[in-house]
């Protein structure tokens, strides 16, 4: 009986997928449902109580802070996306098409990915000696005579926030773009050259179109990571800049869970809409 039961492809599939399903149900789906429920609850200064009211959303949508903070979040996402795309594409292109030995290719690729497996917090902290008022950047610029006084906007500003985002997340662009580029049939490049295309034309009309799936996957990573971030903005701006994640984490700090939950629901909605649009351009499972 059991043997027969497991011969069914669907049944065996579900049995093997059970652990994954359970983890996702308990720690992904249930938390989302819980957040949606709590977003309708009420809160006093010390506790939260079940209710079904729209107060949290009303407050959220009537506050000008909300719009400013969402705008700021999208701004960070857009600027970081553009920078990581240009840098990531260039690096991936160099690795895929200019490095001829495969061993070298793997070595350099690993060199680019190793920081991914180290701590983000440490990588943020490590910018402080660079950007601080008496940091390396200011000292260098002063000794070169470029500036007379230390620049104040290097640390704890939009600049440092975006710098950290680019530093942390560019490899999320490099890896998928490199992966797609490695699968481009090299004879297509030869064909382009034989037909008289120069390097730039080959890049524009052959490589970039064929690399689009990788670009899309990288985009999804970078955009969602930046939009959902709360720690980079807090740390690198010295709590002087805000994004949606910080709005949520501030509410959590004040034990205003229902309000945090309402903001979280709107944030999740925004992120999912962005993803849904991006997914129309790529079939992730085929591109791995």
């Amino acid at each position, binding site marked *: 009986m059991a043997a027969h039961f497991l011969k069914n*492809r*669907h049944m065996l*599939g*579900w*049995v*093997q*997928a*059970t652990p*994954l399903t359970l*983890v*996702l149900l308990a*720690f*992904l*789906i249930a*938390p*989302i449902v819980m957040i949606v429920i*709590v977003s309708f609850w009420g809160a006093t200064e010390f506790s939260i109580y079940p209710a079904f009211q729209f107060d949290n959303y009303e407050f959220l949508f009537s506050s000008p802070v909300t719009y400013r903070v969402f705008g700021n979040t999208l701004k960070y996402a857009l600027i970081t996306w553009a920078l990581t795309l240009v*840098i990531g594409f260039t*690096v991936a*292109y*160099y*690795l895929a098409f*200019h490095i001829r030995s495969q061993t070298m290719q793997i070595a*350099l690729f690993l*060199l*680019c990915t*190793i920081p991914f*497996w*180290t*701590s*983000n*917090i*440490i*990588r943020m*902290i*490590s910018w*402080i*000696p*660079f950007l601080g008022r*008496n940091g*390396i950047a200011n*000292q260098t610029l002063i000794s070169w005579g470029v500036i007379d006084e230390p620049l104040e906007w290097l640390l704890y500003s939009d600049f440092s926030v975006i710098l950290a985002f680019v530093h942390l997340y*560019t490899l999320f662009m490099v890896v998928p773009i490199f992966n797609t580029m490695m699968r481009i049939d090299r004879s297509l490049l030869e064909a382009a050259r034989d037909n008289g295309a120069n390097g730039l034309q080959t890049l524009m009309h052959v490589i970039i179109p064929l690399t689009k799936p990788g670009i899309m996957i990288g985009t*999804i*990573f970078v955009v*969602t990571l930046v939009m*959902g971030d*709360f*720690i980079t903005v807090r*740390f690198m701006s010295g709590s002087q800049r805000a994004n949606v*994640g910080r709005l949520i984490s501030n509410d959590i700090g004040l034990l205003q*869970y229902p309000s*945090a*939950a309402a903001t*979280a629901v709107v944030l*999740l909605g925004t*992120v999912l809409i962005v993803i849904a649009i991006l997914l129309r351009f790529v079939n*992730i*499972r085929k591109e*791995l």
Partner: protein
Amino acid sequence: MDRRPRSFYVLSAVFVLFVLFLYGPILTIGILSFQGPQGGLTFPMNGVSLHWFRDLFQEQAVGDIWGAFRRSLVLGLLVMVTTVVVSVMAGLAFRKRFAGSGLLFYAAITSLVIPSILISLGVGLIFNQLGLKIHWATSGFGSQLTWTLPFGLLIMFAVFNRFDKSYEEAARDQGATAWQTLRHVVLPIIAPSLIGVALFGFTLSYDEFARTLLTAGSYNTLPLEIFGMTTNVTTPVIYALGTLTTAFSFVIIAVFLVSVWVIGRRRARHGSDAGKAA
């Protein structure tokens, strides 16, 4: 070999700059962690010493970082083993294209792209409302899995997309049962990729912050402890800690990469074609 175009040299320079950008800051705090006892958070170096590393071993100076390190290590290993097992099982399941697999796939992708603070908040709320105690080994463990499992699953997709099914068919034709085929054919072939999954599982857990923030309970993991230090520690001791834990990460990464390489070498030597699906 034809001559390198000029763009090669330009791009090489760009690449070198990129690598400097990636590693420069961490090297800097590596150097600064050897500051003299009077030294500050930036250059110039005020002497050279191991003062700040010694500080790390004195509890009153830095709090419970060794306890935090032990917890992160145990949690990392738990997450690693779970990630490998669950990802392999799920990877095998998805090959069967069972009904509803599309839905599960989208759930996994959601798990990857969902803002981490939602996991933190949602899991925290559930545990509170159910009256369960928040602890790094329960709520923290589950929250971290939502981050490591999608990566494990994506790697399994990449592996099975390149997997030559004729190995399995050959095994079946010779009378192997489904379990024997899995145990003696499929798993050995994909073994090096499993080391990759393990690497992701361990390091992503060991460094995880956002999803553990509200789910670790009263005992901090190392990244939480370090973040706590950033608000109240203003001496290079935090650089010393950063240097040490990054060095630890590098050692772990090296161990994983070397073992993949050794397995590859051993296979080449024994003339086995296992793993060379392409």
